[in-house]
């Protein structure tokens, strides 16, 4: 790891000022993405701005009809939160399946979304549930937030402060793990929302998380896995590597979407 200067601001405003003042500074919270890439010398930020001691940034609460999760809420907090379990159990279950218990004690929702790893779990939930990413500067809709591999709408001095999830009628997340890395080879989050249905896929797309509109339209008419029969997901634009071909991933998207719909329906 290359040398860096460590900063521990007490407020989001101080953190943002540090980002403005120090070019190429990086934000750190749980560190479970950034520290590994710094060890590999794939990243060498001269300044680290640690958000983990900013009070109130990890709050989980209901606000009106939305579940609001603070940026530094850890995966373990989301997984075990009674508020999340009551409001969107599929989200609690997703958080409880990230990494392993020790990773979940450190990794944060804001960190996962800021990094936008193409195999991360949270982006699928944010896109399918139509969540809003709130930063120190503005509010971003999920559709405008994700912009491809490890790429988001965040500016260099912009910090995620919370994520607002509107409550779905039903939802479920099913992932198929790579047997070695345990990351999602494919993960599908299905949300039946008051006005529509959304199907978001992680792990498979060469441009990161994406929606399967053909599935969404069919499921909007009738929310049953049966309506997906005969609709194929094209392999075009999907990842192909030693872990699975694009065709295999396309097949998995169909299988996992059916399972997710069945799981969402079984939760009543």
């Amino acid at each position: 790891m290359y040398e860096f200067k460590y900063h521990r601001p007490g407020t989001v405003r101080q953190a943002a000022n540090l980002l403005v003042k120090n070019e190429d500074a990086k934000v750190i919270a749980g560190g479970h993405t950034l520290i590994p890439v710094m060890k590999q010398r794939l990243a060498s930020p001269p300044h680290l701005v640690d958000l983990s001691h900013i009070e109130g940034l990890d709050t989980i609460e209901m606000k009106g009809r939305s579940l609001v999760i603070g940026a530094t809420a850890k995966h373990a907090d989301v997984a075990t939160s009674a508020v999340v379990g009551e409001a969107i159990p599929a989200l609690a279950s997703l958080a409880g399946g990230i990494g392993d218990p020790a990773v979940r004690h450190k990794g944060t929702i804001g960190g996962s979304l800021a990094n936008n790893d193409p195999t991360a779990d949270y982006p699928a939930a944010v896109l399918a549930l139509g969540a809003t990413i709130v930063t120190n500067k503005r509010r971003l809709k999920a559709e405008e937030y994700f912009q491809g591999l490890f790429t988001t709408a965040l500016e260099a001095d912009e910090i995620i402060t919370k994520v607002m999830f509107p409550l779905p009628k039903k939802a479920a997340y099913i992932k198929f793990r790579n047997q070695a890395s345990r990351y999602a080879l494919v993960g599908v989050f299905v949300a039946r929302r008051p006005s529509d249905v959304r199907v978001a896929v992680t792990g498979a797309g060469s441009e990161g998380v994406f929606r399967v509109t053909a599935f969404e339209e069919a499921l909007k008419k009738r929310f049953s896995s049966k309506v997906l029969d005969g609709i194929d997901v094209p392999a075009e634009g999907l990842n192909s590597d030693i872990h699975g071909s694009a065709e295999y991933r396309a097949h998995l998207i169909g299988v996992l979407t059916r399972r997710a719909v069945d799981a969402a329906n079984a939760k009543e």
Partner: protein
Amino acid sequence: MAKISLIVNGNPVTANVDPRTLLVQFLRENLHLTGTHVGCDTSQCGACVVHLDGKAVKSCTTLAVMADGHEVRTIEGLAADGAPLHPMQEAFREHHGLQCGFCTPGMIMTAIDIVHRKGHELDDHTIREELEGNLCRCTGYQNIVASIAAGAKAMAKSDLA
């Protein structure tokens, strides 16, 4: 350099560290607490698991400066020198939950964390799921799982948490 103050195994510690020092490096090289191991160094194997404010974390993926003001517990902090072993350590000894022993400190710190979160009656399935982040290349896990189930029960009757 950055000045850090933290509690390690109940003792206050103050030191000047290079900010890039990993918590596991700080424990091993500055404090000579070499019970915490570095296995994969990529947050997968769990040999480096310690408790940070009572929760299991991978000390190879935590900066020492991030532990400033917090409390760390390592395998050395489970039982006093010369005193009887912690019930989870004793269970690993009794049930032969190790062969080479390299993964054992991390296994035991994770096991105690499981008990804190899931209680004293642990079925095999729960233990195996919870061991997702700890790798052992010797035992095939059978005796580790048996040790943790027994250790969890023994902890219910012990003063050591």
